[in-house]
């Protein structure tokens, strides 16, 4: 079985702070990380590799710096890593990104299963996983928290707002994973050594047989026309709660006054 995991390199937003004077992001020292949900996707693939046997290929679309994310996935156990990298991909929206990734998957040896994280923490769109499935013409099961594979059928617990569904699909298929699925493993020392030396396969637009009219800005139906920082909230009131009953009465009065309750 050949499993492909799509990963994205994102800014580690845990450290994102706002400069109160300029109202902009403070980016100093913000490191690039593997999108956390993609770590769960990778782990899901590695668990299948350990249990039923599979080759795991990780594919990432991004700038040359994304190589570090790919080496990390290899240190954790990915067999092969591919960087989909071309200036022509710049400015791709979710339509063009889905297309490019699907072309990347097509360029690999026969693939049975594609994993994506449920969404990336910088864009939060959750559109690329289903988009890749659509371009490949495969079924998609989103928000997977548990999977089993038997005889080319994948059985998935798919989380929705107040519960889960059990869904079965024939492979090949695309799955997107939620955090509850697993706890991503740490890289082993041996893995790190191997990853350090490994060659990263580069796939440019031509090698992925991507139509230049379908990628980058040209292939993106959407355009960003304005970027702005939302108005900052003025700081609210802070009261002393050492008299619990008084504090409770004041709060309830305030909420009733403001007509929120």
């Amino acid at each position, binding site marked *: 079985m050949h499993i492909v995991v799509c990963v994205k390199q994102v800014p580690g937003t845990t450290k994102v702070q706002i400069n109160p004077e300029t109202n902009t*992001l403070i980016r100093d020292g913000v490191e690039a990380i593997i999108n956390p949900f993609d770590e769960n996707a990778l782990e899901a693939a590695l668990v299948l590799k350990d249990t039923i046997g599979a080759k795991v290929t990780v594919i990432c679309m*991004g700038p040359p710096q994304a190589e570090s994310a790919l080496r990390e996935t290899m240190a954790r156990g990915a067999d092969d890593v591919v960087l989909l990298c071309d200036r022509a991909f710049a400015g791709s929206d979710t339509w063009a990104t889905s297309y490019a990734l699907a072309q990347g998957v097509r360029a690999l040896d026969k693939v049975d299963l594609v994993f994506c994280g449920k969404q990336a923490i910088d864009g939060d769109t959750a559109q690329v996983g289903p988009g890749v499935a659509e371009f490949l013409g495969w079924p998609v099961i989103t928000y997977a928290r548990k999977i089993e594979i038997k005889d080319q059928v994948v059985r998935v617990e798919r989380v*929705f707002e107040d519960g889960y569904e059990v869904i079965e699909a024939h492979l090949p298929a695309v799955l997107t994973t939620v*955090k509850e699925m697993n706890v991503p493993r740490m890289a082993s020392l041996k893995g790190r050594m191997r990853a350090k030396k490994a060659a990263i396969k580069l796939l440019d637009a031509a090698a992925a047989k991507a139509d230049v009219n379908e990628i980058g800005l040209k292939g993106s139906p959407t355009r960003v026309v304005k970027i702005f920082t939302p108005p900052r909230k003025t700081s609210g009131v802070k*009261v002393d709660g050492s008299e619990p009953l008084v504090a409770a009465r004041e*709060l309830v009065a305030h909420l009733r006054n403001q007509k929120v309750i």
Partner: protein
Amino acid sequence: MSLEIIQDKCTGCGLCLKACPFGSLSLEMRDKVGAPHPKFKRIVMVDVSCNLCGACVPTCKFEAMKLHRPDEPQPSVNLADFKGIWVYAEQREGVIQDVSFELLSKGRELADARQTDLVAVFLGHNIREKAEELFHHGADKVLLVDHPVLGVFDSDAYTDIFAELVKKHKPEVVLAGGTSVGRTFIPRVAIRVKTGLTADCTGLDIDEKDKLLLQTRPAFGGNIMATIICPNHRPQMATVRHKVFKKQKPDTARKGQIIEEAADLKAGRSKVVDVIHEMTNEINVAEADIIVSGGRGLGGPEKFQLLFDLAHELGAAVGASRGAVDAGWISSFHQVGQTGKTVCPKLYIACGISGAIQHLVGMSSSDMIVAINKDPAAPIFDVADYGIVGDLNEILPMLTKVLKEG
């Protein structure tokens, strides 16, 4: 299209770096011909992550940045052929989701602005009688497809039928709830009909000049807002989360036209074997008007009872921070934040939640935020409209008591 840095003019001041939402700009030492050099001059460099959004250009005081835009490509379709505002009316087990009513009220505004029809697209099985509710909430027409295969959500079948309807009727705008269902098949529809889709919009307006749908959404956890358009493809598609727009009071006198579409559908390649509701008697945090949320500061799983008691009085849902969920005090269905649910209720009461950025991005757009925490320096107070510094073990029971007194 490219972003050009005019080296002679760039002073290396770095103002543009702060404006870049994608972290694509950096300062590097270069020599006269632009080759890396340890001494000569510090200038701005653009890396490939640049999205060519142009946010940096106006910040440059030295006119050293130039965005080269190519001529806009010609529309792939005749834009004037596309008419009507569509809302995907999502039903689950025959119950229309609130987010669909919220979208109908926004859709009504957009349809009036464009002087066109508001159409609710209603897919399912044995749901015809529910269509009335869609008229009551503002729809002029209901496009109904009633088919056994559509009884339970099936990504393949829903994508097939919705894409067919779009191709046949050519709507100008399609709106859908950013639910687990909407976020699964709507992206596939957008790919199939070759148009753009903007996720989780918090603002939707019609541009006065060129009549395009202006779709505003947060990025980077709400630190930045972006307005997005879809100029040359149709329909213009967007998803919106729960509670972003206000549901209108139903007008039961309102009537409309049901257009039933026949469908030749086969069961998809994935099959739902079982559906399990894990939160049966509780209010779903994503849909709640009021949320009472607890974090590590509660001190233990048994303390969630204080929250459930208060929530009961308020008719509220109970939320939790990642810390409380990871500690195993409550199930992850309650988790609010980056890895949990994004919520925007009318009232959010954060109890014993310090306010890590992962949590704040999930709830900071709530209308009113109340924080109760014993640490006066907790970051949650920075976003709170009303903060109480004190012991929640004492304050929460008092709140419940005061509310009971009426």
